[in-house]
């Protein structure tokens, strides 16, 4: 079974600064996907960024980028130029590459507050 751990329950950052959220996971799989989801107070989970484990290049999406360290089983999210709208819960999630039951396994979340 896979486990995902987010060791930072809460973090804060000043507007326009950079913040990094940590995530580690445990799996015996070699091929898999990793995701960061954002959950604002509206409760809807919004996909922020995804990473395929077989790709060495770190994924980027505008102000969001990841540092994927496969050997260390680490998957951190960097948010650059933080904006007030980035305030939300952030969840790291794991998915096997294939097979029946492509369930997402989530970490416990990190609450991010962006301060003006």
């Amino acid at each position, binding site marked *: 079974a896979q486990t*995902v751990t987010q060791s930072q329950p809460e973090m804060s950052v000043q507007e326009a600064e950079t913040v990094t959220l940590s995530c580690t996971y445990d799996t015996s799989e070699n091929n898999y*996907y990793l*995701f960061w*989801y954002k959950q604002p107070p*509206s*409760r*809807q*989970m*919004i*996909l922020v960024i*995804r990473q*395929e484990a077989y790709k060495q290049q770190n994924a980027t999406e505008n102000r969001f980028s990841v540092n994927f360290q496969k050997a260390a089983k680490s998957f951190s999210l960097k948010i650059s130029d933080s904006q007030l709208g980035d305030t939300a819960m952030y*969840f790291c*999630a794991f*998915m*096997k*590459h*294939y097979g*029946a*039951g*492509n*369930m*997402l*396994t*989530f*970490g*416990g*979340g990190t609450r991010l507050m962006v301060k003006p």
Partner: protein
Amino acid sequence: EAGVAQSPRYKIIEKRQSVAFWCNPISGHATLYWYQQILGQGPKLLIQFQNNGVVDDSQLPKDRFSAERLKGVDSTLKIQPAKLEDSAVYLCASSPHDRPSNYGYTFGSGTRLTVV
């Protein structure tokens, strides 16, 4: 493209009562998931449907929870009788294939259940 629709948005019931939640996935999405998110935790998979068949219900408390997906479209999740520990947000998600890894899922806004 319309998103994943869920109703009701909020529900308050007394313990031992029954409750039902409804989910309408994105049109054409074959796979549907129900997740339970207890306050302060990451979502946990309850059940996964592929069309109208169950793929994984290993985490569903079958003594009180039931779910169905008639005609492979809408789905309902029922709790009977409810317990205090069932208080949570119930999230529905859908994906177009049995291997949604490329894009993760599309989530609805969830139903917040409070059992008193």
